[in-house]
């Protein structure tokens, strides 16, 4: 049987590659200074020199979207890194060893997940104040439960498999079994939840900035802030809101397709494995 190409994964990867390269470019070069204001350039529609137009301060929107997407993405990156690292550790330990500790940690996990993560983030930020670092830490901590849950499930499934039992019989250390033997086997699952995590982080940062409690306006542009500021110009200067909105959509679509594609690959793989077994 010929393996049909995984369109989701291909489309997702190429979309993400394009956006990420534009964003990386934005770290070093933008068409204009994203913060430079100019009264004579106020709210110009999209044209050749300002590809996405300018906002009510005369700032170039393309430059701001490039910088803003960079800010949003870097926050998402660090937040997901924190979430994934600690989530994997917690999920791995509890899933592998089980027992009372597993029960307790997972119930705490449930309690945290019971609250919408943005709401919790809002509460924390209103106490600690806003800022890039704080948002990264807060979102990172809030993402731990979802990773922990996924990883725990996989570890619990794998720990009773033959290869793990064999390794145990041969006297391999627990840490080695966990991170060298089991972890690579749950790679695809972890990857696709990282992709989903990225989506959630991008959305969370954008919503927080949109609500005015995210990135400080003096720090750098952010997609959520651009949306917030364009709110009152929805009809007179729609390009502002559209550019930021589209940028968020494209970012998320890329990651969503990747996560979908990874899931498909996993299903396809297990299906072929089963078929092979039957063939044998």
């Amino acid at each position: 049987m010929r393996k049909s190409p995984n369109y989701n994964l291909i489309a997702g990867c190429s979309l993400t590659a394009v956006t990420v390269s534009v964003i990386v470019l934005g770290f070093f070069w933008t068409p204009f200074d994203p913060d430079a204001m100019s009264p004579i350039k106020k709210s110009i529609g999209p044209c050749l020199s300002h590809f996405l137009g300018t906002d009510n301060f005369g700032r170039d929107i393309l430059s701001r979207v490039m910088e803003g997407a960079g800010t949003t993405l870097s926050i998402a990156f660090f937040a997901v890194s924190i979430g994934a690292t600690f989530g994997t550790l917690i999920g791995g330990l509890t899933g592998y060893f089980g027992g009372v500790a597993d029960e307790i940690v997972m119930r705490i996990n449930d309690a945290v997940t019971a609250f919408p993560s943005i709401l919790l983030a809002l509460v924390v930020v209103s106490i600690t104040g806003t800022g890039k670092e704080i948002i990264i830490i807060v979102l990172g901590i809030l993402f731990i439960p979802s990773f922990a849950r996924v990883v725990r499930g996989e570890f619990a499934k794998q720990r009773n498999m033959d290869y793990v039992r064999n390794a145990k019989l041969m006297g391999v250390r627990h840490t080695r079994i966990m991170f060298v033997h089991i972890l690579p086997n749950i790679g695809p699952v972890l990857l696709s939840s990282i992709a989903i995590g990225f989506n959630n982080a991008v959305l969370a940062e954008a919503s927080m900035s949109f609500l005015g409690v995210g990135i400080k306006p003096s720090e750098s542009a952010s997609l959520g802030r651009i949306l917030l500021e364009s709110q009152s110009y929805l009809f007179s200067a729609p390009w502002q809101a559209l550019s930021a909105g589209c940028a968020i959509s494209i970012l998320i679509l890329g990651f969503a397709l990747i996560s979908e594609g990874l899931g498909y690959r996993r299903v396809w793989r297990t299906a072929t494995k089963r078929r092979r077994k039957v063939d044998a």
Partner: protein
Amino acid sequence: MRHLRKILALSLAILMLSAALSACSGGKTNEASPQSTAETTQPQVSAEPVIGGELTVGIAQDLDDTLDPQKMVSAGTREVLFNVYEGLVKPDTKGNLIPAVASDYKISDTGDTFTFTLRDSVKFHNGNVVTVKDVVYSIKRAAGLDTGETLIDGFDAVKSVEAPDEKTVVVTLKEPNIEFLALFTAAIIPDGNDPTKETVGTGPFKFISRSPQENIVLENFSDYWGTPANVDKVTYKIIDNAETLVMSLKSGAVDLVAHLTSAQVKELGEGFTIMEGTMNLVQAVYINNTKEPFNNVKVRQALSYAIDRGAIMDYLADGRGALVGSSMYPAFQKYFKPELVDYYTYDTEKAKQLLRDAGYPDGFEMSITVPSNYQPHVDTAQVIAEQLKAIGVTVNIDLVDWGTWLSKVYQGRDYQSTVIGVDASMMTARAMLERFSSDSGSNFTNFSDPEYDKVFKEAIASTDDEKQVELYKQLQTILTEDAANLYIQDMCDLVAMGNGLQGYEFYPIYVMDLSKVYFTK
């Protein structure tokens, strides 16, 4: 067929390109003259006025605090009830106090006794004539002389209220204060009346009904003592969403909306009468004068020179608004000192020189704390942050919610600087200037100057109006010369009227007088 498609695609591409190019140049010319997008017409004399008609006004907030005119605190409530209630005197559009329920008043030379003569045949909405008993009850109630609970700030200065005859009321204060006259704008209500149960005033409109979060209905009061209102009925519709408010105006469901922003007026498009006034507040970067480096007057002056106020107004409201140079807004003509407006003109070289003199040749880092729910202030802070880069000052903008701002900045005074608008709670210069005397409880800028304190004490004790005005102007000059705060502007306040409505007039305080508006054919 193939050719046709190619040609079609090509022409489409050219069309899009030219559209994009024209948008580019078109945008620039449009922005240069804000008047081209929003018509600013004065009340037209040519259009024939029509007496009568039903007026619908869109307001953003319900009268949530109270219907009691002596207990109300929110500006939105004051704005509505201004049409229903009147005091012994009332403000006019120029900021003077004119007799209302009283036909005449006299202030004693000692400045502590006010004598009012009641106007003949002023009627309450329930048909009864206003008597001295009603007036004494109203003032006693506001001052809390019987209950011990002062309902209106400042009324605790009242010592006694007496009615020597059927037409005269004498109010004695604990100490001289000629500005106290402004407090007699307090509503006159019938003897024994509880305004939360029964809304009876003497204003041009009588209260008919209120459906919470929905509407408030007023009706023309035919027995009004003064010039009667032009329209028969007023319905206030409560629409708390700003976008919905604009849309209702556009669809004609609402005839009049006040307090619009420049951007909202742009969304409206053609066919509306736009009236431009100011919000009667002083928007400024208020500075914590005790915090480093702002305890140095040269630093404050440097920052004053480094801010381009004109540009701020351009960004925020297409150049609309009125520049201020001290803690007084222009609509308050009696006290406003226009010479101070251009005391600090935009000059980055001078600013840099002053910073060098102050010992900050490379600038410094400062923070501006802004309440995040007031977008105009947040926008102002952003523009200032960008402008101060030119003299090497790095600005961090800290966004906080309104509650945090009140507790941390206003009450706690734990901040470096903040962008906010400060208004007057009543129509006195004291309300604007008292907060900068060193022992004032509301001196959130921690401004302290012995000279200022001295002049302020002199001003409030003065019993001569002219001299008092002079002293208040002197106080403003001290604030400007010391650069106590970075004064920016009195922000523009736009009123949009549709359906041929005319006649709206602005007051130097936050009210909306509907008795003067009229429909035209």
